[in-house]
């Protein structure tokens, strides 16, 4: 049996290696940056990406109003402003207000005074109301036929700036139902950007067709787009890497099946495929998975991955005897079935427990789950011990303490145990305790649907890319050498192949964020993406379609925002490619 002191040399060695790796990666990064900054375009791309990200983070501070929208995103504390300040719709000036005053001498409502009121606003009780505006000056008066009238026919009440008074001339000469259009400038301090220099303090992008500040909408749109971009790119990269490396490494029939499956995805043009998936996901209201699936699959996956990672890091060669390796291999099957057994015994009958103990359903469920988890964790921890040492009860507590000591090289086993524990806890955190199902995404709204559709359509591309990389690296001499020494597949994968395949992955990831933003806004544009009324760039452009020829600013700014963001990510990806793959740079 190994004692704690035996591991001293190993611990020192592993710390030394860690330090070396850190300093190595730091100098690699520095060298990469020195190459990167040589390209003006790449630096410009980086700046654009940082700019957009910053703006989206500080949107609450920069924006003058919160977009009136229904994103249903409870994660972010976006204040839904029930009082969208309505200005003149589709105007590029926010301080101008146009209002029709109907003068009717016979009406009992006819007065010499007219109150300057805002457009309809939506109150907290969802009813419309109007605000009184304090008028600065009257710009134009025209009659119902569009002829300009003398602007001295109407003047602002010196005592109250929100009251316009008709001169007797206009008052007496007005015929039945004469409509007069008054355009006046009013004091709209709420809409001014205080952070802009004097003279620019107006709402700079104009207003939308509902009279909201377009600039704020575009700002908040960056949040939606970046969120979609990062989520989709991360998940597609993860799935694609897993599938692609399996396919590339094992080859043969596995590879054939996976690649033929991917071919089906490549056979349909991307946007149409994504549209079909958005439609197919239409009835999914919340993303739930059965409990047994949701807990068992991640556990099995973690067990397999960490086991191969474990074999690749600690358990090589001279440190652990071959006999132990054999035990690991020998006990893998029984241990997994043990895990399944405890799981089913512990968790699945749980709904039946309340009658048994006479306690409330949710409490019984949670109690059963907790007991089951404890049993499973205990079983795995004990099993882990079994991997390393022959099992006996003497000194079990010290060994358990050892396994949580981070300087102990054998700690990776505990990492696995912890990972399983964390997985279960996370899954139960998401579960709303209803019993049979774990709720992954409670409100699977349309934003989630386009993200899901883009993930489903996106991963085969990565799988193919990674497969190619793995095939390419696999043929290299160092992989051959590692295999001839007898390194297990996990070690070869994690230590030799993937570190040499990360560069194209990073490039593809960066480019994919841009591509995802483009496709997501395209889907929103044709009405299959985010909800109408959302502050999303594609939606904003599509909402302007009715009369963009007369009000081009409505589509100009959101479109420019999309183009600039995507351009930034593309330039960034290109720059990273130049650094990572100098052969390509010319």
């Amino acid at each position, binding site marked *: 049996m190994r004692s704690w002191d035996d591991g001293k040399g190993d611990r020192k060695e592993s710390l030394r290696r860690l330090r070396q790796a850190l300093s190595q990666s730091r100098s690699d990064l520095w060298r990469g940056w020195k190459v990167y900054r040589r390209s*003006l*375009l790449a630096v410009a791309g980086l700046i654009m990406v940082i700019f957009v990200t910053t703006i989206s983070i500080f949107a609450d501070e920069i924006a003058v109003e919160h977009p009136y929208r229904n994103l249903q995103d409870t994660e972010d504390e976006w204040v839904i402003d029930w009082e969208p300040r309505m200005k003149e719709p589709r105007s590029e000036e926010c301080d101008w207000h146009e209002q029709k005053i109907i003068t009717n001498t016979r009406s009992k409502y006819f007065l010499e005074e007219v109150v300057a009121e805002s457009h309809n606003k939506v109150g907290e009780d969802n009813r419309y109301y109007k605000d009184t505006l304090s008028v600065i000056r009257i710009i134009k008066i025209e009659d119902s036929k569009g002829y300009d009238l003398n602007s001295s026919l109407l003047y602002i009440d010196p005592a109250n700036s929100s009251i316009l008074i008709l001169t007797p001339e206009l008052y007496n000469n007005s015929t039945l139902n004469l409509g007069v259009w008054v355009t006046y400038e009013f004091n709209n301090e709420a809409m001014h950007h205080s952070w802009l220099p004097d003279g620019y303090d107006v709402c700079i992008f104009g207003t939308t067709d509902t009279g909201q500040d377009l600039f704020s909408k575009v700002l908040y749109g960056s949040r939606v787009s970046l969120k979609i971009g990062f989520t989709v790119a991360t998940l597609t990269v993860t799935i694609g890497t897993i599938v692609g490396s399996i396919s590339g490494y094992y080859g043969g029939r596995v590879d054939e099946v996976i690649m*033929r*499956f991917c*071919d*089906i995805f490549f*056979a*349909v*043009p*991307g*946007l*149409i*495929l994504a*549209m*079909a*998936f*958005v*439609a*197919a*996901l*239409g*009835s999914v209201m919340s993303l739930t998975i059965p409990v047994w699936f949701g807990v068992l699959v991640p556990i099995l996956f973690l067990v397999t991955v960490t086991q191969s990672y474990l074999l690749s890091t600690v358990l090589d060669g001279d440190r652990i005897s071959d006999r132990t390796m054999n035990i690991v291999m020998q006990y893998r099957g029984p241990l997994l079935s043990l895990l399944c057994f405890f799981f089913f015994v512990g968790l699945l009958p749980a709904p039946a427990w309340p009658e048994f103990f006479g306690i409330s359903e949710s409490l019984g469920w949670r109690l059963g789950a907790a007991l089951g988890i404890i049993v499973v964790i205990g079983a795995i921890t004990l099993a882990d011990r079994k991997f390393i040492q022959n099992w006996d009860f003497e000194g079990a507590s010290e060994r358990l303490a050892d396994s949580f000591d981070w300087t102990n090289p054998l700690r990776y086993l505990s990492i696995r145990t912890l990972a399983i524990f964390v997985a279960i806890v996370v899954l139960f955190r998401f579960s709303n305790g209803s019993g049979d199902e774990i709720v992954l995404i409670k409100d699977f709204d349309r934003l989630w649907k386009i993200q899901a559709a883009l993930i489903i359509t996106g991963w085969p591309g990565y799988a193919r890319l990674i497969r190619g990389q793995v095939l390419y690296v696999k043929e290299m001499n160092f992989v051959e050498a590692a295999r001839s020494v007898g390194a297990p597949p996990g070690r070869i994968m994690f230590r030799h192949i993937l570190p040499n395949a990360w560069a194209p992955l990073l490039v593809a990831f960066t480019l994919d964020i*841009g591509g995802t933003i*483009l496709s997501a*806004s*395209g889907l929103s*544009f*044709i*009405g*299959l993406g985010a909800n109408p009324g959302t502050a999303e760039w*594609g939606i904003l*452009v*599509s909402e302007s*379609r009715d009369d*963009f*020829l*007369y009000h*081009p600013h409505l*589509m*100009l700014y*959101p*479109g420019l925002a*999309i*183009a600039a963001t*995507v*351009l930034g990510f*593309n*330039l960034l990806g*290109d720059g990273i490619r130049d650094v990572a793959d100098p052969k*390509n740079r*010319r």
Partner: protein
Amino acid sequence: MKLHEFVVRRLLLLIPVIVGVVIFTFSVAHLIPADPAATQCGDKCGIIIDYTDDGEPITAYQANRERLGMNEGVDVQFKKYVTRLFEGDWGESETYNRPVLDVVKDAAPITLEMSFFALMIAYPVGITLGILSAVRQDKMFDHVMRFFGIAFVSLPIFWFAMMLQLYFATGSAMGGVCDPIFGTDGGCFPVYGRHDTGFTYPEDGFVWFFPEGGTGFHLVDSWFVSDAKLSTMPDEWNTRWLLFKDTLLHLALPCIALGVSSAGSLLRYMRASLLEVLHEDYVRTARAKGLAESRVIMVHACRNALVPIVTILGFSIGGAIGGAVLTETIFAFNGMGRVAVTSITSIDYTVIMGVTLVTSIIFLLSNLIVDITYAIIDPRVRLE
């Protein structure tokens, strides 16, 4: 491997993919939440229309389910779907009130024409700019072109299309920069549509629409379609030319919008490919022989640099068909993309299946042609 062996092998590889696509479209259509039996009868679903032999009432809804074969198992439905697919019975569309095959047949040429024309614009532009950029490597022109290469790829198609409409379809009176140059009122190019709704024939004031029939490719049809009215025209060929010009003008803006991202990526690929070739030995040999630089580039380098560009064509076609969804929506072309959008928003699942199947078959076939072309140009591919 001989060429014909390669072609046969490639065709055989196509079969599992097409089978997969058929299964895929079928399963996607069955995942879609709508109940076609309920949508067909609408609010009359509860009406009893018949009785069984046992005296049980049959509602309209049940009859619809029976007629659509929804009471059978999924495997039976799939078998029926496949046999009908081969018999040419693709079902009836709810929104168009026509057989799906007819809808698709009418729509496909429009998208194909648009994609083809878009690539016809994108390829010369992209390749020329790529060559110029590579020849002037690291000069100002090269930097500008590299920027434009990325910028073109980054443009959202729908926004770019609307910008084109804004600036090239409206005259200066409406804020556009474009004054009428082709005689179309209000701007250089028509704002949307596949044709003007009708144009007046100059001499007798006869209002004339595009003739029915023909292949559906109006650029071709405008010259070859036979039409009774057209043949009685005093100068038939002038009218045909007007038709052709009308089609072309309407195609120009959508195709520029559609082709711009292809042009951008082509520019970048061509540049990289040519730069790679320029470092090859045979280019050095050609220069050493004392050939003129233009001849070295155009004859020795470009011909070899163009070979890998052929493979990009496959991606471009896919991108163009996908992008047609957006341009067709904006420019009001009733092509596959618009049909796809309409069918998906109105959940018309027979049309969704048909459109997905047809677009993927078009895409697969064009990729097949590209692969075979590549194998002809570069025989090394066949060895793999």
